[in-house]
């Protein structure tokens, strides 16, 4: 339909004027959602412009794509929704596989905290400035990042944490101290 193309055009125009001088590259997506690639240093500037000047008030998700063994290895993707203009946008940035890091946007949308934690948990991407960046779904003390492409689906030492926990429990057992006494 013609109207769809028209709406996407209007969204793109609004975003372009909001971003102003910030360098961004427009990308074409299969679902027709306006998408932009930006430099990792520009994250805060772009997100602030999107929120304050383009009216994107809700964060939909923060996630990453691992393109191992390509470099730069990780693509971080943010999706936003504007409830006032009824449209969506996606922003991408690519970061290297060595010490992947990108700025947090929890200062702009506190609700991205869990999404960023999950992204850190699964990919090992450091969201600089996130005050509570720790594992979300995997247990504390786990050493690997499961959604990386070089992580096998069968898992790596899946029962190590359980064994350690079990050993600590045995060590604490009163039966043990009695037998030793």
């Amino acid at each position, binding site marked *: 339909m013609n109207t769809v193309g028209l709406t996407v055009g209007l969204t793109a125009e609004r975003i372009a004027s909001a971003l102003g001088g910030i360098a961004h590259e427009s990308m074409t997506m299969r679902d027709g959602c306006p998408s932009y690639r930006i430099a990792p240093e520009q994250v805060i500037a772009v997100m602030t412009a999107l929120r304050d000047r383009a009216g994107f008030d*809700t964060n939909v998700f923060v996630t990453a794509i691992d393109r191992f063994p390509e470099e730069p290895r990780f693509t971080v993707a943010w999706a936003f929704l504007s409830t006032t203009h009824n449209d969506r946008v996606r922003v991408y940035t690519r970061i290297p596989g060595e010490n992947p890091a990108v700025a947090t946007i929890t200062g702009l949308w506190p609700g*991205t905290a869990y999404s960023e934690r999950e992204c850190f948990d699964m990919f090992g991407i450091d969201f600089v400035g996130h005050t509570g960046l720790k*594992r979300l779904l995997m247990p504390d003390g786990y050493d690997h990042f499961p959604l990386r492409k070089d992580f096998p689906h069968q898992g790596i030492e899946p029962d190590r944490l359980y064994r350690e926990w079990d050993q600590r429990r045995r060590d604490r057992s009163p039966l043990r101290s009695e037998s030793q006494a």
Partner: protein
Amino acid sequence: MSQSTPPGTTRVQGTGATGARTTRTFEYAPGEVDRDDPLHGEFMELNMGPQHPATHGVLRIKVVLDGENMVEVEPVIGYLHRGKEKTCESLGWRKFFVHTDRLDYVQPLMNNCAYAMALEKLGGIPVPERGQTIRVLLMELSRVMAHLIYLGTTSIDLGAVTMFFFTFSERERIYTLLDAYTGHRMNNTYVRIGGMYADIEPEVAREVRKWLDQFPAKIDEFEAMLTGNRIWFDRNRNIGILTVDQCKEWSLTGPNLRAAGMEWDLRKKQPYSGYEHYDFEVPIGTIGDCYDRYAVRVEEMRQSVRICQQALDRLEKTRGAEFISDDRRYVLPPKGLVHSSMEELIHQFKIVTDMALPKGEAYHATESSKGELGFFVASDGTSHPLRCHIRAPGLMNVQAIPVLAEGRLFSDMVSIIGSLDFVMGEVDR
């Protein structure tokens, strides 16, 4: 805490959700005792869950209590993490359908539909009108099922035990209908790329209509039990208030956002599966407390009944029409043809072994019973996904628990957890 703070006032970082939250002022820090004040004792750290019946699944909540007041609340999740996104990458596009059922396991068909629509968007696969209508019918039945679970479990947590049996017996009737259509009570996996696995029989449609005719009276019964109930009212009114701005900040969507007073329903705003052709209303709340969230969900059930009835009318009109696309790149040929035609056999073999979706990325959002359920799928043009991210509304709902709970009485916790409505299968994935 630090020595510089004046006695009696200590700053505690509300680390519940982010650690990035605004610092709040509480009278004492955890572990501190004011010996002069007989009314204040030591702070207590309490673990609610992961096996607590009121947490609706394996959710653990660490609560720091000052008497009955919750000073700090931190949800701990991941007890049901099964690595669905990783599984999708290793199984391939088609075989992941069965796993979507296990995400939000109280409404499997809704997840099936959401996943299928994301893949259809990525592949540019059209769905015949009858297939879309069956999907709408199933999605609305799923919504009712999920809301019945919400209503039953929340009310049993708040002491209304009878409600649990009322809602679960209705839910059981929907299970029977789904059993008649799909052959399974739960975990149906009946949606396919391009449409549905099978057409809906007229006898089944008749049974659905029979159920729909008597269900509004049941909703009246539920309401008679709860809406004007003094205990229900007192335990929900003015508890856990969420404003529209807070909802946007914390990415809350669905009934939680609508209860706050914003008319935002993806079925109306960004329609899919032909929802624009259905006549229904979007209920909204006034102040966004637990009671509003209850009222919005009850009204949504009534609206779902209306949509189901319209969907059945449309199904009658399109009887005999195609319910699945015939795009042989993605849709399995009918079994009879596979046995008689070489070409169809090749199609079947190709689809089962390595069905590839075009290179690119797509995101499709649907209005699930908990909020915006979306699948973000990225393909590199091979048979296995590059990435399949599940945007689970339940995760955002769990994240909002500290926002609502901190600073309130511990007894409100159960109302808050219940009214935010999440299912751990979807939160942990």
